[in-house]
């Protein structure tokens, strides 16, 4: 099926190049039998890359830089060039985004339902899934589901999964002291094994007969974590749990991911020192125990305080799926709104944007491909009609791997909402001072004089 499709595309391209050739040029094909022709067409397909460009937009690279009225060129789904006066190959598919803004596609550190299907995304994904369209409409181009990182490649199943295993979940909470002890023992055993293994690596150079230390009884997850092959994913909100995780991480030398992290702001420095990642929901509410003397409970300043202490903060919404129940502003379609609440609590705009792009990309092990717009990275971007963090901004187009996968005008969901200028809630000032006021103003002026 796939090869057939390619052949047909190739045929189309072949024709184009035929017509564009000068008459004197030697014919592309001499009399060859069908099979040879097919081969040749397939070859020409390999030779002609797919070009895609967004032009005329304010390009926000996701690292804090903005190029106004610039262009971005991608070749075969990878960013080739960002800048001005780019020379676009003739066959480039051009998206004119003049007057719009371009951002790297958002990365959802957790999601549910966007890809449909079950745990094995590759074989079960539904790339026509409505939730995927709605997530693209929300600016998301990469998301985690069932512990896999995948792209919102609409209508395609190939190349969708980017990382088949993003993290290992580790239970470590005070409500289960026995489980905690077990975890600790696992890390201790894994660490001892690693020491023995390193020693063996040295010794075996001298004595080739030496046996490799036995792996039996060593917890594979703990070992993978210590070898930095997988990120350990904790889920904790309470202060003492957070502290214990930080200590465990420091003791064994790994970087923990802590989802929830509700009281993280009270121990931000400790988490920062432990090199923790925090996955927070800024609007999360947790009552402070009434008889607590120290600080506790949730705080709108959580993300800001964690970030200030050096914790890498990723933001996830209260609901990780798409919700069409009518209550709006709390699901994954409002990831930027959730990030807005972190800004409300003092996080910088840039850090908040990173918390829904490059930081989750790092957590999912795909930061080398997505999360920012840089040459060599995947051409996954969104084009918006305004500041992506503003509550009235809409995604007009979403692009994944250099292919347009969402066009607001083509989908029923939001097509009826016309692009609007960035609005101000009360654009016109209506100053209509009454007589008395005028007098008072005169008085003020006089006194000022």
């Amino acid at each position: 099926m796939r090869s057939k499709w390619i052949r047909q595309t190739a045929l189309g391209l072949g024709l184009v190049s035929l017509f564009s050739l000068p008459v004197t040029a030697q014919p592309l094909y001499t009399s060859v039998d069908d099979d040879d022709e097919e081969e040749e067409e397939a070859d020409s397909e390999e030779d002609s890359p797919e070009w895609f460009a967004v032009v005329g937009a304010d390009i926000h690279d996701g690292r804090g830089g903005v190029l106004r009225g610039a262009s971005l060129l991608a070749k075969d789904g990878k960013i080739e060039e960002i800048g001005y006066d780019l020379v676009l190959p003739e066959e480039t598919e051009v998206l004119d985004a003049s007057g719009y803004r371009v951002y790297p596609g958002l990365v959802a550190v957790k999601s549910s339902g966007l890809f449909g299907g079950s745990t094995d995304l590759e074989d079960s994904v539904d790339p026509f899934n409505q939730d995927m369209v709605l997530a693209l409409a929300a600016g998301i181009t990469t998301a985690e589901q069932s512990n896999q990182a995948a792209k919102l490649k609409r209508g395609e199943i190939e190349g969708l999964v980017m990382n088949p295993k993003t993290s290992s979940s580790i239970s470590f909470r005070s409500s289960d002291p026995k489980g905690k002890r077990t975890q600790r023992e696992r890390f201790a055993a894994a660490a001892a094994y690693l020491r023995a293994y390193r020693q063996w690596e040295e010794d075996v150079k001298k004595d080739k007969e030496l046996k490799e230390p036995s792996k039996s009884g060593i917890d594979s997850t703990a070992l993978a974590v210590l070898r930095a092959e997988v990120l350990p994913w904790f889920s904790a909100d309470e202060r003492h749990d957070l502290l214990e995780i930080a200590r465990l991480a420091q003791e064994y030398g790994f970087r923990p991911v802590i989802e929830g992290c509700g009281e993280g702001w009270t121990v931000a420095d400790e988490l920062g020192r432990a090199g923790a990642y925090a996955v927070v929901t800024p609007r999360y509410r947790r009552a402070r125990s009434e008889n607590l003397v120290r600080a506790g409970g949730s705080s709108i300043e959580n993300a800001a305080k964690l970030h200030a202490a050096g914790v890498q903060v990723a933001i996830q919404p209260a609901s990780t799926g798409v919700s069409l129940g009518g209550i709006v502003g709390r699901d994954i379609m409002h990831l930027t709104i959730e990030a807005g609440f972190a800004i409300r609590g003092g996080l910088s705009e840039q850090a908040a944007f990173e918390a829904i792009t490059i930081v989750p990309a790092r957590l999912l092990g795909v930061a080398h491909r997505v999360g920012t717009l840089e040459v060599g990275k995947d051409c996954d971007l969104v084009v918006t009609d305004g500041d992506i963090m503003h509550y009235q901004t809409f995604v007009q187009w979403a692009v994944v791997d250099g292919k347009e996968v969402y066009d607001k005008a083509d989908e029923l969901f939001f097509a009826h909402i016309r692009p609007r200028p960035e609005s101000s809630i009360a654009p016109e000032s209506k100053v209509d001072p009454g007589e008395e006021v005028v007098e008072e103003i005169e008085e003020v002026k006089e006194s000022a004089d």
Partner: protein
Amino acid sequence: MHFSPWTILGSLALALPAGAAPLTGGGPVVLRASSAETVANGTLEHAVILVEDGVITAVGEDLPVERGIPIIDLPPGWVVMPGLINPYSRVAMDGKGKSDSRPQAQASVELYASHDDYQDLLEAGFTTLGQYPAGTGIPGQAVALNLGPDGPSVALDPAYLKIVLNASSSSKRMLRDGFEEVDEYLEKEAKNREKWDKEQEKKKKSKKKDDDDEKDDKKDDDEKEEDKKKDSEPDVYVPLVPDPEVQVFMHLRDGTLSALVSIDNAAEYLHLVDAIGEEEFAWGLRVPLTRDINLYEVTDKIGERGLRVVVEPSLTLHPGTMRQRNLSSELARAGAKLCFIPRFDSVSGHEDLLLHAAEIVAAGLERGAALRALTLEPAELLGLGEGRGSIEEGKRADLIFLDGDPFEVGTKVRAVMLDGEFVTGEVPQ
């Protein structure tokens, strides 16, 4: 038209001795109708159809008919068309299937031939019926039945292999495994052959040696003579017998069996194509047209392949809206071949099939495509397209007689001819 008047004249000699033959008995008979839906060659006005020995031997417009051949003149307004064919039914069958892979299973062993439903279906205008095995996974092979007044008989078994594919690793693996097992068998077989060949070689050599020995040593001549006899018997290679399930997939590969794959949505089509990979075999699709189905996402791809698609004549709704979609029409326009089956797999569902097909025609499906979807395409799907499904010379005279246009509300099936014989209803003379 593909008609030469000589056909009728030529057959006259055969026909005459029978004289004024009754409507039954297999003798030649001419049907004259104000309109005939040939399916293969469009609608004929003032149609004349000659039937001999259960086979259509001539068909055309306004053909002259020599005296002596019994003529059945259909009442004005009546239409004759090929019998309806449902390729995908479990009517008169019961039992639940499993969800594993058992391609060697056969629906034909499940049949309950004396079930009343078969007669009811015949009266509703169905002359051929495909029955599939129950269950998901790869439930087995369907059978094609001739419906008849004395109960059904097998027309072709197996007719096709039913496969249910859903978006899951296990389901996709099931299909891949089927072909992989063929590869494994072929490999094993090739090795076996090689081994045999080598043994033959060895035998030849040792025989040569024996012969040489013979020259040297002429003792025990009798014994040697016997050996010689044994050796001279040409050894015949007996291939390894593949397991029955492997045989089914071999038949898919060699084209003697086709598959009908059931999917539920657009994504499953992609997964199916992914699971098939480079494998080449004939396959069609069964897609239940559920209310909000998103099949339109892949109609172009389906059409491009010219796939046969089994659907109910139902309008669907564009997901999330009240906007009706005529996916049958979209599929046909894209190049797919439709097979219509009743919305409900019951007797009354079969009785409503024409009416429901008419709705789809009214909603934009090309009339010819709808007629094919009721007759010729299902016949092709069942592997019976050579002999039935249209009014053409050489095809079985399985015909139905309607008292009006097939897509007119209120039109009824008034009579059914099977194999050249009227089996239900009557034609007023």
